């Protein structure tokens, strides 16, 4: 096997391990962090500081009774949780872990899939996430599920536009879809968050809406629609949706960090010249930034009330989309003027 | 072993034939529409195959336009279906026959 193939397998393994480890950590952070913000203890019975709570949650998911609604469309009902996992666990392949290193004379970029169509591949795979929502609600044979799934999917495709436009604005001065070029561009200049702060805000809000997180989680709010499109799912099937949501959050945070906060770049340190050590440090820096972002997700969740559905759609179409277009025009003008 | 381009063309022809049979056979309006999308897709495959064969990128650019046209057509066609359903409560093309002799 060639160097590239072995490297790809190693990178794939590393990414999967990190992603699968982050999910239980997020469960703990969500509940303990939320409790801290709401001035209550949170889970504190299992292990010190409730650290074994995710283990108990996993146990609960495994042992819970598996119910299938009687009149539901069986094939689609079983397919939906699997479909939820596919975009969540396949979009990380274009995120660079660290600088391109040279192994045995071959340049090995630190992305699992160093394709020319980098971010576009990310967006394409992420757009497939709508199907799990639609199918889950439809197949549950439950009017609340159907309503929740229609709302969730309409919300998701609406905010995808603003997300894509803000990504395009970042790519414009770089001149390539590849994320390692985006990071190199930010190392040469300033982090993209400074000249493109509007784009960053648009991306952030759209990311919240894409992952159905508060304040955009009306489609799955308990007081509104029971649990929206995943009402009828229990045990491991619900766990699939649950994991897919956290994985999607993580991957979108990683994309935001790579596009706007310099990815694996540590200001003042030239990681590209340090070989394997540079990759390790870069990966740790990336993980730290993504962790900060994820904490921000949790912070917003426990701080804001949720938007009503018509307000949500109005913000997406009448607020974020014009903002994203204005950002794009500003970046285009600045690129032409030579500032970016 | 490299795959000869004629295999792609055969596949595209097969998908086109399936789409045609579907468009002419089914009664559900949405399924007819899906068959038409299938035909458009097979045309895209043909264009890309010839672009590969003749080493000319024109085929790929045309596919981009076909994609956009298919999107526009889908939007208008589905709006028509919604309007039709509102008036006649059915999408069955055999029942939408007010103007037949």
């Amino acid at each position, binding site marked *: 096997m060639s160097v590239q193939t072995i490297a790809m397998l190693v990178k794939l393994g590393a990414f999967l391990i990190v992603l699968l480890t982050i999910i239980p950590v997020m469960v703990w952070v969500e509940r303990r962090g939320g409790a801290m913000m709401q001035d209550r203890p949170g889970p504190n019975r299992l292990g010190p500081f409730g650290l074994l709570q995710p283990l108990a949650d996993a146990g609960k998911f495994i042992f819970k009774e598996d119910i299938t609604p009687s009149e539901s469309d069986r094939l689609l009902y079983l397919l939906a949780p699997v479909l939820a996992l596919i975009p969540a666990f396949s979009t990380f392949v274009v995120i660079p872990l660290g600088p391109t290193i040279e192994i045995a004379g071959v340049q090995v970029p630190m992305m699992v899939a160093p394709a020319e169509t980098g971010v576009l591949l990310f967006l394409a795979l992420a757009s497939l996430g709508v199907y799990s929502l639609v199918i889950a609600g439809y197949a549950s044979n439950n009017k609340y599920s159907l309503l929740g799934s229609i709302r969730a999917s309409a919300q998701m495709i609406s905010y995808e536009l603003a997300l894509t436009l803000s990504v395009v604005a970042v790519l414009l001065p770089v001149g390539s879809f590849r994320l390692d070029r985006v990071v190199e561009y930010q190392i040469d200049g300033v982090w993209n968050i400074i000249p493109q702060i509007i784009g960053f805000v648009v991306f952030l809000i759209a990311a919240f809406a894409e992952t159905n997180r508060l304040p955009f989680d009306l489609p799955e709010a308990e007081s509104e629609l029971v649990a929206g499109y995943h009402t009828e799912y229990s045990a491991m099937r619900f766990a699939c949706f649950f994991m897919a949501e956290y994985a999607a959050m993580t991957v979108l945070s990683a994309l935001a960090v790579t596009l706007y906060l310099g990815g694996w770049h540590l200001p003042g340190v030239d990681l590209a010249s340090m070989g394997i050590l540079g990759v390790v440090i870069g990966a740790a820096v990336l993980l730290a930034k993504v962790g900060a972002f994820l904490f921000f997700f949790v912070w917003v969740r426990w701080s804001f009330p949720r938007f009503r559905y018509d307000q949500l759609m109005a913000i997406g179409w009448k607020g974020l989309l014009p903002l994203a277009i204005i950002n794009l025009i500003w970046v285009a003008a600045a690129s032409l003027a030579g500032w970016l | 072993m490299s795959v000869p381009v004629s295999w*792609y063309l055969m596949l595209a022809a097969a998908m086109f034939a399936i789409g045609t049979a579907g468009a002419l056979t089914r009664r559900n309006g949405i399924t007819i529409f899906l068959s038409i999308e299938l035909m458009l897709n097979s045309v895209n495959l043909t264009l890309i195959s010839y672009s590969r064969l003749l080493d000319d990128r024109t085929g790929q650019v045309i596919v981009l336009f076909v994609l956009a046209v298919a999107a526009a057509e889908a939007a208008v066609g589905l709006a028509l279906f919604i309007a039709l359903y509102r008036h006649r409560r059915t999408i069955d093309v055999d029942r939408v026959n007010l103007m037949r002799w």
Partner: protein
Amino acid sequence: MELAIFLIFSALAVVSALVVVTHRDPVKSTLSLVVTLFSTGVLFLLLGAPFVGVLQVLVYTGAIVVLFLFVVMLLNLQREARSEGGGRLQRVFAIAGALAFLATSGVAIWRSAAGTAVGALQQDFVSLTAFATELFDRFLLPFEIIGLLLLVAVIAAYVLARRPEGSVAAAIDEHHAGSGAGGSEVTR
């Protein structure tokens, strides 16, 4: 490797195409179309068109088919019932015609020069910069016209799917639009 990928995804494409045209349930037909379009997208990648392949997945499967699915779900389309005779001859001729087309084009492709081996993919052919140059240089006018076409389609779709004037639903929509912004005043 290329042969393996081609065989898997072309088999997938043909099987799901058959499911699209034969299945009674419109929801399953639509989902089969997703599989077909995704497989074709992969085949585009094999043929040296990565940009178009990824765009196919992003636009076609990620947006257009979702639109189809919405309409099918909103209209709550049921499974198609067994046909009531009458159209039998039409169906026989349709399938026969399709098979005839397939046979004719098959022979034509067989006899043509398409069977000759092509060289390996060159980086210049696959590169996005070259594609973009071609798109915005030779095809600039069609590109702009496509933009206009999409605008016309959006307006047409809105007009066609609008609720008819004077219906109960239209009245409710107007009520919402009028008082939506000042809705909080009602609770005061």
